[in-house]
C-alpha cells in the first residue's frame, strides 16, 4: 500500500497525503467562511493572511529545516524579539541606518543558531534543552537593552514598512510578503535540489543509516540550526516592519505557533518527511482561523487557541496512522 486511491482514478503517494489533507482543510475553511460572512470570499482576505503572518511564515521555514532533521528549535520566538529590540535600539539610539542594522541583526541570529547547532552536535545533547537555554538567553538579552517598547522612527525604515505593492484589481501586498515568498521559494529549492537538502531528509529519516552512508550528519545539523537562527532574525526584521517597534515581549510563544504550523503542514515531528509547501499551508490555516474568528465577531480571541489545539490533535493522530502504516 504505497498509494491511496481516490475515487478509483488518481493515485496519491502516501508522503503527499498530509499536505493534501491540509490543503483540503484550507479550501474547506475558506469556502465555509465565504458562505457565512459577507466580503470574506475575496482575494484580499487571503493576501491579508499573508501580510499579517509574513514573519511567522519566515520563522516556520527555518523551523521546518530543524524538524525535518528530527530536532526542534524553541529559541525562535525569543530570537525574533531580540532582533526587533536590537533593530529599534540601534536605529533610535545611535541612529544607525537600516542597511547596517539589518545585516547585523541577521548575523546575530545566525550566530546564535550556529552556536546552538554546534552544542547539539558536538556534545550530543537533546535539541530541546539546548534551544530552551537559547530561548531564555535571547529573551533575557532583550531586557538588558530595555524593558519598555522602543518605537522605530527611522524614515527609510518606516517608508519601506508602509509601502503597498499594488497587484491587479485592487489587491495589494506588503514588501514583507515578497520577502517571505522569496525565502519560501529559495528554501524549497535548497531542500529539494541540493545535497544539503537531501542530507536534511536522510538525517531525520534514520540518523544511523545516514552516518553509515557517509553523509555529513554533524555538519547538516549545525547548518539547520543556523538556518533557523537566520530565519528567526529575518522574521524579527519583518515583525519590526509590521509593529514599527522593538519590545522584549514581542513574539511571546511564537516558537509554538511555528511548530504548530509545521506539524499541521504535515511534517513528521520525528523528522525525515515533509514539505515546505505544507508549512506554507500550515501558516495559512492558522491565519485563516484568526480571520474567521474576527469575522465571526462574537467569539473571543482565545477560540483561536482552541481551534489550533483541536487541529493539532487531529494532525498528530493522522501522522501516527501514517507512520504506523509505513513501518509495516
Amino acid at each position, binding site marked *: *500500500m*504505497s498509494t491511496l486511491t481516490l475515487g478509483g482514478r488518481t493515485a496519491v*503517494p*502516501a*508522503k503527499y497525503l498530509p499536505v493534501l489533507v491540509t490543503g483540503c482543510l484550507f479550501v474547506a475553511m475558506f469556502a465555509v467562511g465565504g458562505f457565512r460572512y459577507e466580503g470574506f470570499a475575496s482575494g484580499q482576505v487571503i493576501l491579508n493572511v499573508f501580510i499579517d503572518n509574513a514573519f511567522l511564515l519566515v520563522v516556520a521555514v527555518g523551523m521546518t529545516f530543524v524538524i525535518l532533521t528530527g530536532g526542534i528549535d524553541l529559541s525562535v520566538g525569543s530570537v525574533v524579539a531580540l532582533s526587533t529590540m536590537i533593530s529599534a535600539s540601534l536605529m533610535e539610539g545611535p541612529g544607525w541606518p537600516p542597511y547596517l542594522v539589518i545585516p547585523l541583526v541577521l548575523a546575530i541570529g545566525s550566530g546564535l543558531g550556529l552556536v546552538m547547532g554546534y552544542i547539539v552536535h558536538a556534545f550530543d545533547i537533546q535539541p530541546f534543552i539546548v534551544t530552551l537555554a537559547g530561548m531564555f538567553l535571547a529573551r533575557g538579552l532583550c531586557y538588558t537593552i530595555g524593558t519598555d517598547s522602543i518605537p522605530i522612527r527611522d524614515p527609510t525604515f518606516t517608508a519601506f514598512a508602509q509601502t503597498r505593492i499594488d497587484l491587479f484589481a485592487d489587491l495589494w501586498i506588503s514588501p514583507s510578503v515578497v520577502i517571505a515568498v522569496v525565502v519560501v521559494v529559495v528554501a524549497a529549492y535548497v531542500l529539494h*535540489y*541540493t*545535497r*544539503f*537538502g*537531501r542530507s536534511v*531528509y*536522510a538525517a531525520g*529519516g*534514520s540518523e*544511523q*543509516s*545516514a*552516518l*553509515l*552512508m*557517509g*553523509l*555529513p550528519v554533524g555538519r547538516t545539523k549545525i547548518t539547520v540550526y543556523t538556518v533557523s537562527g537566520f530565519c528567526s532574525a529575518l522574521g524579527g526584521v519583518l515583525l519590526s516592519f509590521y509593529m514599527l517597534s522593538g519590545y522584549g515581549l514581542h513574539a511571546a510563544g511564537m516558537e509554538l505557533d511555528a511548530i504548530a504550523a509545521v506539524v499541521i503542514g504535515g511534517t*513528521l515531528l520525528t523528522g*525525515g*518527511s515533509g514539505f515546505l509547501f505544507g508549512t506554507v499551508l500550515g501558516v495559512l490555516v492558522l491565519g485563516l482561523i484568526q480571520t474567521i474568528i474576527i469575522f465571526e465577531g462574537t467569539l473571543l480571541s482565545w477560540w483561536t487557541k482552541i481551534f489550533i489545539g483541536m487541529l493539532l490533535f487531529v494532525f498528530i493522530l493522522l501522522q501516527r496512522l501514517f*507512520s504506523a502504516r*509505513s*513501518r*509495516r
Partner: protein
Amino acid sequence: MTEHILRMSGITKTFPGVKALQDVNLSVRRGEIHAICGENGAGKSTLMKVLSGVYPHGDYEGEILFEGKRCEFGGIRDSEHAGIVIIHQELALSPQLSIAENIFLGNERARRGVIDWNRTNYEAAALMKRVGLQENPTTTIADIGVGKQQLVEIAKALSKEVRLLILDEPTAALNDDDSAHLLDLLRGLRDEGITCVIISHKLNEVIAIADSVTIIRDGRTIETLDMAGDHVTEDRIISGMVGRALDNRFPPHEPTIGDEALRIEDWTVYSPSQPGRKVVDNASLTLRRGEIVGLAGLMGAGRTELAMSVFGRAWGVHISGKLFKDGKPIDVRNVQDAIRHGIAYATEDRKRYGLNLIEDIKRNISAAGLTGLSKRGWVNENEEYRVAEQFHKSMNIKAPGVDSVVGKLSGGNQQKVVLSKWILTEPDVLILDEPTRGIDVGAKYEIYTIINRLADQGKAVLVISSELPELLGLCDRIYTLSEGRITGEVPRQEATQESLMHLMTKGQE
C-alpha cells in the same frame, strides 16, 4: 538423582514464514548443569524464550513439564513464580540504580508499601556474599564491570528462590578471570541443588562444566549426550552442530583472481561500552580483486565489529592497525574517507543502519553516491531518476516504480536497494554483512548472482555470514574468527563445515 526436573516435549514454534522450532525435546535432570549447543540461528534462544514464558502458552505447540507439573506460562512472571529464571546475554539491569535496588527490583523488601532500606541492603549483602561479589550494596550498577553485573543478575535470580537457572551466553562478554569465577560459581550452585541450563558457544567451557549437552540444529533436537557416559569431546559436539542441510542452490562461478585490493594488518578494536575489552584482537586479512572471501564466526566473535571499524571507524574505540589499498597504506578516519577509498559496507541490520525506510527507492539508492550525481551541491534529479531506473531493472527490484517507499518492500528487494546504493559509489571493496539474512530462497539466489557479478567486475568482496553452507557455496576463501582473533584461513576446496566450526570455536590458548 536421576529424576527429571524439566521435560519439554514436541515443542514447535512458528514465526510468519519460518519454523523456528520443530518438535524439540529437552529433558534436564535435577541438580545438573545442562548445556545447549548449536549454530547461530539454530533455535536455542527461541527454545529458552518458550520455556521462560516470553512466548506465552498457546503461542507454541508442545508440552512443558516442570517438577512433574504441566506448565502453561502466560509470561515471565509466571515462570519466575514457578522458579525458572532466565539471564539474557544483554543484561537486564537498571544502570543508575544500586546493586541492592537491582537485586530486589519488582520484588522490593517493603513494609506496608514503604521500602525497608535496612532489610534491602542487608539481604542484598547476604546474596552478594553467596555469589562472591565483593562490593557495597549501594554501589550503582554503572560503576561495576560486566563480570560483576553478571553476578548481580545471578544474585537477583537467587533472591527469587530459583530452582532452574537459565544462562544465555553468560561468558561471551567476560574476560578469562571473570569467566572462570562464573563457572566456579555455577558448580557451587549445582552443589546447593540449583539446576542450570547454559547456552554457550565456547565448547571448552561446555566440556569443563556441563553434565550433559543437548545439540540443536535447524530448529530440531539432534541428540542429548551424557558427558561422562558418552565420553563427549569438542569434535563430538561439533559433528552434531554442523551438517545443516545444503538446501540453498548456488549459481556456478569461476573466479578470476587479480591483485590485492585491501589488506588489513594487526587490526585491534576495543569496545566502546566496556572499557578495556578487546573485541577484535590483532586481526589480519587480505582481499584480492575478483575474489569472494568469507568471514565465518559465531555470535559475539567480532565479525560486524571488525567490518564496521574498518569502514571508517564506524564502531569501536582505540582502533589500531594498518590498512592498505592496492598495496599503498591509507588513512581512513571516517565513513566519507572509506567511501572515497572505494570501500563499501552493507550492514547486517539494513532496516536500522542501511536504509531510510520512510524515503523512496530513488533517494535511498542515490544517498551514498550523491557526489557523483551533483554539481557544486546541486543534485541532478533527472540523472538521479535515470540511475535509479537502471538499478530497478538491472537488479530486478520488484516494486511498482522508483518512487515506491523502501519500508514497504520485501527483505530481498530492500537488500537489492542497499546493494544498488553501494554499487553506485563504484567501490573496489565491498563488505557484505549477512547479505541474505531474512531473505527467501529465490531472492537469495539472485543476491548470490549479483555477488558473483560484482566479483567478475574485478571488485573484492568480503561476505560475513552465519550460514556455513552459504560461505562454502559462495566463497573462494574463508577466514574464521573466534573471540576477535583470526583463527584460520581456508581455501574453498579444503573447507568443510566441521573444519570451519573447529576453527570458529577455538578458544584462547
